[in-house]
């Protein structure tokens, strides 16, 4: 399985995701944002962290970079695309995923381990998880407060496009378990063809028991299938 990680100026979780992918036996390449073509690849990852300092809006400027046109082309052809954290923000800025990520409701950067649960395990990203399985995963963001219009929200629900929701350790999704104010506790969504996943939590931080836990492993092993 070949993967490509896009690197923008100021990206900072690019190495982390590359390490995780390699650990999971992906053949990974880093792709600089000024490239105009992508190598042959089965998975494109837009990493977390920051891009261009996220000075205007998170992901806005990266969303205009040269390589993004290629990413959009690959997406249309069904290539798998994973956007983590800033990557999710970039995907919404490019329109590959609908909605947007507003500032956290407490107006502060939040870094902590939170619980999310798997809402749909019939996708290439999540097949190794059980339905409603609760994962403990690290979040680190300033703008993770997912927002979309009511029509799209309905579509997300009807078509089973919500990948993960914030919850408590028993799987209840409620106000207390929502760290950032996201609409309906949404932590990650698919596009309608389910070849694109955007998520705020960082699965690449959860593949090493020495550092945290290995709740992120199955996301990568699902992709390997």
């Amino acid at each position: 399985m070949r993967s490509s990680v896009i690197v923008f100026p100021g990206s900072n979780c690019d190495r982390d995701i590359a390490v995780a992918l390699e650990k999971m036996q992906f053949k990974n390449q880093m792709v600089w944002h000024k490239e105009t073509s992508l190598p042959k690849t089965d998975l494109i990852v837009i990493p977390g962290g920051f891009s261009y300092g996220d000075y205007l809006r998170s992901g806005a400027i990266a969303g205009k970079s040269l390589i993004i046109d290629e990413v959009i082309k690959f997406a249309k052809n069904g290539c798998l695309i994973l956007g983590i954290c800033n990557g999710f923000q970039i995907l919404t800025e490019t329109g590959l995923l609908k909605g947007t990520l507003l500032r956290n409701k407490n107006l502060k950067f939040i870094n902590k381990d939170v619980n999310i649960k798997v809402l749909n395990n019939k996708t290439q990203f999540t097949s190794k998880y059980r339905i409603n399985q609760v994962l403990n995963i690290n979040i680190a963001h300033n703008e993770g407060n997912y927002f979309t219009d009511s029509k799209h929200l309905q579509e997300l629900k009807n078509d089973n496009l919500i990948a993960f929701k914030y919850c408590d350790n028993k799987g209840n999704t409620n106000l207390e378990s929502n760290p950032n104010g996201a609409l309906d506790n949404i932590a990650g969504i698919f596009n309608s063809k389910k070849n694109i996943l955007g998520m705020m939590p960082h699965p690449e931080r959860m593949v090493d028991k020495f550092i945290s836990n290995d709740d992120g492993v199955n996301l990568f092993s699902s992709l390997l299938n």
Partner: protein
Amino acid sequence: MKITNEIIEKHGLKLDEYKTIQKLLKRNPNILELGIFSAMWNEHCSYKSSRIHLKKLPTKGKKVIQGPGENAGVIDIGDNDAIVFKIESHNHPSYIEPYQGAATGVGGILRDVFTMGARPIALLNSIHFGSTTHPKTKSLLNGVVSGIGGYGNCIGIPTVAGETKFNETYNENILVNAMAVGLAKKNKIFYSKAKGLNKAVVYVGSKTGRDGIHGASMASAEFDENSEEKKPTVQVGDPFTEKLLLEACLELMKDDSIIAIQDMGAAGLTSSSVEMASKGSLGIELELDKVPCREDNMSPYEMMLSESQERMLIILEDGKEHHARKIFEKWDLDFVIIGKTNNSKNLTLKYNNKIEGEIPVEILATKAPIYDRKWVKKKVVQKKIAIKQLKKIKLEDALIKILSSPNHSNKSWVTDQYDQMVMCDTVQKSGSDAAVIRIHNTSKAIAVTVDSSANYCKSFPLTGSKQVVCENWRNLISVGANPIAITNCLNFGNPENKEIMGEFAECIQGIKEACEFLNFPVVSGNVSFYNGTNQKSIFPTPVIGGVGLIPDISKTLNHYFKKENSNILLIGKTFGHIEQSCFLKENFSISEGLPPEINLNNEKNNGETVLQLIRKNLVTSVHDISSGGLLVALSEMSIGSNLGAKIYKPKKLTNKFEYFFGEDQGRYIVEVEKTDLEKVIKMLNDNEVYYENIGKTQAKNFEVESEFNIGVNDLFKINNQWYNNY
């Protein structure tokens, strides 16, 4: 421009210092040259009041690759790996503009570390605010914390440890100290010493603006009521550009294009060029028209004194220009050759082909005045506090009072705003005795921590500063690390006051004694004087940042109880020293008397023994005992783990408050499984370490025999409420 006394004073120079300048130059300086002198000769850059004392600190050791004198200290951690680290203050700018002041403090210390060829792998900070009831404290706290996070999160380096304290002594002068730790290859360390003639001097990074002009002299003058009015141009941090600069520098450092490199920190272009030239006994000529400027019509004076952030000066090897330029352009950064080295030993500044200033480098760098300022020993006042004569309180209430106080509350309100996990090597985050960072791709790790004890240092500087070093050492031991070396940030008041200078001299003496005894050398540091307002100086606050090595990552430990029914051992002797304790301060507002004595012999023996216990896998959790004493330390072990404890009351107890809250030094708590107890006791006896078996872990409840019994959940709540209600 005629140089009047007023102009001299505005430059922070004393009249007799100006006379020295005239004598050394054998003429009058022009205004540009005066500006350069003021930048190089102020307290911040020249260490004129501290130098003779700093010399006493032990700076050498088997593991020391580079001690003080370079951008940061460097230690050897084996396998050709080196750790580069330093701490620095950004107190004054952070008081004026907390977000940007703190952010640029982080940016500055990061540059000190990556100039030396190290990739930064961890950030720490020590932040001190005024009383929580002071009207400014809340917004300063908010601004500083988000500024530290804003910079570190954006550049992508985890902020993993620190300390957050409140004390009214900082009401008008907060402390913001930031520490950065980087990883380099031992044979690829970069220094600032210029070498060779006619080498290109290259400016890289951001453009130069009018920001921060005279920032360094601001850091060397006391505040008065007007300083907020004066509105000095505060720098705005740009972590995005710094990230680009970091990657570009590390990329260029892969081969040997660089002869010397120096970040432009305080006093920007001036101090960086002077430093490089002086270390190499060379001259440097700069063509200032080439300096990339952000604003129109900037004068040579402004260019030389600007403190714009995110800039570096590099001396390049011949023939490497094209290669280097390509790298910086790839990262969208300015790259301009602005001068060259020569053998004149002068700093020569040209503008439009005209020499605007010329000063022998030697004069700037080494002829700055050095003061042996008057100092007096602290008059120590022995005072025994008789608890029996105080208002009666319950043990449980005293504990709750401490655990819910601002200084002892859980700091996750702060640390949740920092990305602690980025880089995916954080084994142990904030909240433990020391943070543990894995060396990428290996099975070893380093432990890092910062500590201070201003109250102790105020009442008895000599013992207080010794205690800070020991506490730092203990924190490293507690997570299973061999302590290696420290960096220090010495935050003091006005050195022209002999009492303050006495605090400084005695604190240095204390640090020296502890470091020498523990073989814990000082490899870098920073002095910040003039903290205070209107003649009222802050408490002496030396902050110690320590680094230790954990050779095998599987042998690191934290302080959370692991299992029910383990034995809890208290290591080190408890005398019940209650003066200067947080028990008296929080419950009775008493802050008289002396801090606990330090017995370096016991300190070392106890610590080394605990480390052996950890390495032999004989203990399952370890916590050092510091502020708050035994009972607070025990509660912290419970709170993090959800396991409770049952603590026996010792038979011959003089006073339970002294026993449970006394702050005697050199003590640890360890958790020992039943099966290992015998082995542990044997080792303690063999090493002549004093210990007591004080209780057992248990489920859910934290209790002291025949005193109180409280749910761990409740303890957690008590410990976690203050920040959220503030």
